[in-house]
C-alpha cells in the first residue's frame, strides 16, 4: 500500500536497478506445487512481491457443450486479479486486459500439451493474482505450467516465462512494477526449453531490432534458469511426501513383496 511515486532513475550510476539487481538478475522466486486440496493440480509462485496461485481442473466434462472439440481437449484459462492485488482497487468484473491475458497464457501453454489425448473434454486453468508487482502474466505461466503437470496432464515440457524490458536505455530481465510502469518497454515471453521455440511474445514500448534480438536472448537464458526451478519444485513436491524411513531401501529390493515398480501401473502397460 505504498503510495506510488515515480523514481528519479531506474538504473543507478553503478549500473544497478532500483531494487539493487543487476540487469540480468531475476527477483527471488519461490515455486510450490500442490498448494490447493480441491484442484486436480495446483502451484503458487512468489516472484519478488508478485504472488499468484494457479489451479487446474480436468480433463473433465465440458459445459457448455458447443465449445466441444472432437479431436482434443479444450484448454480454458482464466487469469484474474484479486481486487486488492493492485494499488487502486480493481473492479471485480473481468476486464478486457484480463481476458486478453487469459488468451495469451492459453496460447503460451498449448503447444506443450498433448490435448489430443482427451477429445471432447476441457482442461481448466484458474489463475488468481493475489498480489501484483510486475510480470504477472509470465509468473502466471510459470505457475500454471506446474499446476498442469501436478494434475497429470501430459505435456512435452514445462513452460517457463519471463518479461524482459528496457529502462534508462538498458535491457533488463524480470521487470518489477516500477520498471514496467516507468521504463521504455516490455517484452514478455515464454519458451519450450528443449527447442528454444517461443510460445508467448508480446512487446510494448520502443526497441530497435538489435535490442529486441538481444532482449529475446536474455529472455531465453532467464527462461532456462526458471525451467530448472520449475523442475526442482515439481520433484520437491514428491520428496517432501517421502517419509524418513522410506530411504532405507536398496538392500533387498529384488525379493521384496512390496516392490514399487511391479505394484504401480500394471494397467497402462497393457495398452500398447
Amino acid at each position: 500500500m505504498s503510495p506510488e511515486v515515480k523514481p528519479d532513475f531506474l538504473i543507478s550510476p553503478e549500473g544497478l536497478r532500483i531494487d539493487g539487481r543487476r540487469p540480468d538478475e531475476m527477483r527471488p522466486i519461490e515455486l510450490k506445487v500442490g498448494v490447493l486440496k480441491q484442484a486436480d493440480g495446483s502451484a503458487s509462485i512468489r516472484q519478488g512481491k508478485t504472488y499468484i496461485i494457479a489451479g487446474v481442473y480436468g480433463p473433465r466434462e465440458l459445459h457448455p457443450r458447443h465449445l466441444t472439440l472432437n479431436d482434443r481437449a479444450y484448454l480454458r484459462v482464466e487469469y484474474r486479479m484479486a481486487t486488492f492485488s493492485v494499488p487502486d482497487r480493481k473492479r471485480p468484473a473481468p476486464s478486457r486486459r484480463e481476458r486478453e491475458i487469459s488468451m495469451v497464457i492459453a496460447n503460451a501453454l498449448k503447444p506443450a500439451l498433448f490435448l489430443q489425448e482427451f477429445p471432447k473434454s476441457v482442461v481448466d486453468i484458474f489463475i488468481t493474482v493475489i498480489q501484483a508487482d510486475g510480470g504477472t502474466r509470465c509468473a502466471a505461466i510459470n505457475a500454471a505450467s506446474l499446476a498442469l503437470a501436478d494434475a497429470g496432464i501430459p505435456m512435452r515440457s514445462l513452460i517457463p516465462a519471463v518479461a524482459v524490458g528496457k529502462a534508462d536505455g538498458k535491457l533488463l530481465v524480470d521487470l518489477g512494477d516500477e520498471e514496467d510502469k516507468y521504463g521504455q518497454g516490455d517484452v514478455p515471453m515464454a519458451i519450450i526449453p528443449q527447442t528454444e521455440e517461443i510460445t508467448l511474445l508480446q512487446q510494448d514500448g520502443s526497441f530497435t531490432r538489435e535490442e529486441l534480438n538481444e532482449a529475446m536472448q536474455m529472455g531465453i537464458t532467464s527462461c532456462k534458469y526458471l525451467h530448472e526451478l520449475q523442475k526442482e519444485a515439481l520433484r520437491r513436491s514428491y520428496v517432501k511426501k517421502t517419509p524418513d524411513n522410506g530411504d532405507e531401501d536398496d538392500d533387498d529390493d529384488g525379493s521384496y513383496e512390496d516392490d514399487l515398480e511391479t505394484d504401480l501401473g500394471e494397467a497402462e502397460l497393457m495398452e500398447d
Partner: protein
Amino acid sequence: MGDFSTDTISHIDREFISDLLRKGERLDGRAFNEYREVEIEANVVPAKAEGSALVRLGDTSVVAGVKVLVGEPYPDSPDEGVTMVTAEMSPIASPLFELGPPKEPAIELARVVDRGVRESGTVDTKKLCIEEGKKVYMVFADVYPMEYDGNLIDAASIAVNTALLTTKYPEKKWENGKVVDTGEILSLPINNVAIEHTIAKIDENLIIDTILKEEFVQDCRLTMAIDRDSKFTAMQKGGGPGPMSLELVDKAMEMALEATKDIQKTIEEAVKTVG
C-alpha cells in the same frame, strides 16, 4: 440438500452422514459443536492491500483483502464513510463453482458476511468522513475462496474481520478543495467485531462448521453473527429448503454462543502478530 443442488447427492453419502450423526459421531471425529482447527495468517498481501488475511478451516481456505479508497458519500449520509463486502466463488476453489458472473450462492455469501460487518457497526463509518458531503473513505473487503470444503461463510467472516482489524491506510485531509495526504498512517475505527457461525441441520441434529460432505446432505443451515457482547447482529437461514423448529433455532443460538469466544480469541491473536 446443500447449496449446490445441481450435483447429484449419492444415497450412500446421505445415509452415511445421517447414520453417523444418529450415533453422535462425525466423520472427522469432531463433536457436533466443534470447529475444525482455525488457522489465520494476517497481512498476506502486504505490498498492495491495506489489510488482508488468509483463513483456513480444515481444508477450506479463503483470502480476504481490504482496500481503502476515497469517494463521495451517499446523499442520505453525507458525513459517513462506506463499508462493503464482496465475494466471488472463484472456480479455482472447487469443481462445483462455475465460471461466469457471481451466481446466487456467491451473492448470498457476500451479503451475509456484509450484514455481519455492517449491522454490528464494526467500522465506525462516521469517523470515515474526510469532508462532509464531499469526500469519505470507502472500505472494500473482498473475499476469494481458494479451497472449498464446506462452511465458506464462517471462513469468510473470520478473514474479513481479521483483514479489517489489521488495516492500515494513509490519512487524507481536505485542503483547498482537494484531498491530500497528511503523512499519517491510520487504523480503521473499529467499534465492535461480530463473527458468523453457521450451524447445519441434518435430520434432527445440529452441527457446526460443516465439511462439504455434510453440507451436501444438510436440510438447511442457520448463520448467526455474534458480536463481542454476545449479541446477535445478523442471521440467515439458507443452504436448503428444510424447515427448522423454534427449539432447534434456540439450540443453534446456544451452540454459536459457545463457539464464538474461542474464535474471537484466535482472531485477536492473529491481529497481534501484525505490528
